[in-house]
């Protein structure tokens, strides 16, 4: 059987804690007992893989993958970046999935009842595989901010949800990306579940004028970092002991 190296321990002080009192839904949904720390076994080291048979090239173009009568309304953007690990190694051929509200801040979901209009030409999801250098790109519209029930007057900053696999199932990650310059970021109780400002900055996609399409689309760059693998320099215990 294939041997996988161990993963670097996840830095739980960099991630948000399970219980964050200002994000009210977390109060009853946060485990209160200590997590049980587990050294990597094959169940966590292995992970599902995906190929080009699983998805279609159009899946990553949110301007076109649900269009019925024309393009969706909103600010056209390219979203691109790399998936790397903590050792700065690119993660190739890994599945990246995104979902988002439309330009008015409304989701295409049977449970979303916000009064902003559904866009008939916008589904709001996309997926792609990273290339051999770990690069990915999507084309979409910039999502709108929207109100949500936390405090009476809580607003989510414009954001796109991102899901990434990596090689090991223990690298599995879901996060949200925000947009450079948005004043709602600093006020958001979900953003502020993250204790360290440097970690929050890691979720803010940068305006990238080098990646725009002139006279067509703005661009934002968002790199994603997954857990890295430990190197084994010395074998200090023979197998089975």
């Amino acid at each position, binding site marked *: 059987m*294939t041997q996988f190296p161990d993963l670097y321990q*996840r*830095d739980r002080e*960099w*991630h*948000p*804690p*399970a219980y964050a009192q200002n994000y009210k*839904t*977390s109060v*009853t*949904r*946060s*485990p209160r*007992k200590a*997590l*049980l720390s587990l050294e*990597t*076994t*094959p*169940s*966590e080291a*292995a*992970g*599902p*893989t995906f190929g080009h048979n*699983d*998805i279609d090239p159009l899946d990553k173009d949110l301007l076109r993958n649900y269009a019925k009568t024309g393009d969706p309304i909103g600010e056209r953007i390219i979203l691109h970046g790399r998936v790397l690990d903590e*050792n*700065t190694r690119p993660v190739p051929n890994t599945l990246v*999935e995104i*979902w988002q509200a439309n330009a008015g801040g409304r*989701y*295409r*979901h*049977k449970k*979303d009842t916000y009064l902003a209009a559904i866009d008939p030409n916008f*589904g*709001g*999801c996309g997926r792609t595989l990273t290339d051999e250098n770990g690069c990915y790109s999507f084309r979409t519209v910039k999502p709108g901010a929207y109100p949500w029930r936390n405090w009476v007057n809580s607003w989510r900053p414009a954001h796109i*949800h991102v*899901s990434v696999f990596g090689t090991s*199932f*223990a690298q*599995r*990650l*879901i*996060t*949200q990306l925000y947009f450079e310059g948005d004043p709602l970021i600093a006020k958001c109780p*979900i*953003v502020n579940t*993250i204790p360290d400002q440097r*970690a929050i900055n*890691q*979720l803010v996609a940068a305006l990238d004028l080098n990646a725009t399409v002139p006279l067509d689309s703005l661009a934002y760059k968002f790199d994603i*970092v*997954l857990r890295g693998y430990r190197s084994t320099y010395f074998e200090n215990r023979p*197998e*089975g*002991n």
Partner: protein
Amino acid sequence: MAQKLDYLKETPSQTSGPYVHIGLAPGDAGFDIYRQELGRDIAGAQAKGDRISVRGKVLDGTGTPVKDVLIEAWQADAAGTYPGCGEVAPDFRGWGRVIPDFETGEWSFDTVKPGPVAGRSGIMMAPHITLWLVARGINVGLTTRLYFADEQATNLNDPVLNLIEQDSRRKTLIAQKNGDSYRFDIHLQGDNETVFFDV
């Protein structure tokens, strides 16, 4: 001062929010967009092994079902092999997505029962399925394992179950046989809080 270590930091997690299905299971969000959705079959009809089904609910600290959860299941095939770690049974993917009924919170999935897998240093782990939970209000995806009540002997020697100090907590990882299926309720809080792992 010392040299600077040049490791990157892992991207911090954020909740999947209530509309995770749009991205990962759009059919359940209420629209049809992709040629095929991923994770619909953990084990296809041709995959060898004992066919099983698992049902359950995820419950919050008040005992209320978490109706907007999305669970990913990851398991070895009936011979104990993970995809990517050797030849697996034909038509076996080992990974799937589980979405509850939005009214009741009850979910179920069908698969084949996994075989035992060698853990660290070759010690055998009892058959189990890794589950990863995301939902609104869950800031970092939660990892747990589902073991089977009818694998009593192998469970007793399982190196991961044996890391759990309290007997009463070990039970939270054992799916109970219930007629034709297994029952596995996951408690996010409370006296019966499920054991979650930092893997």
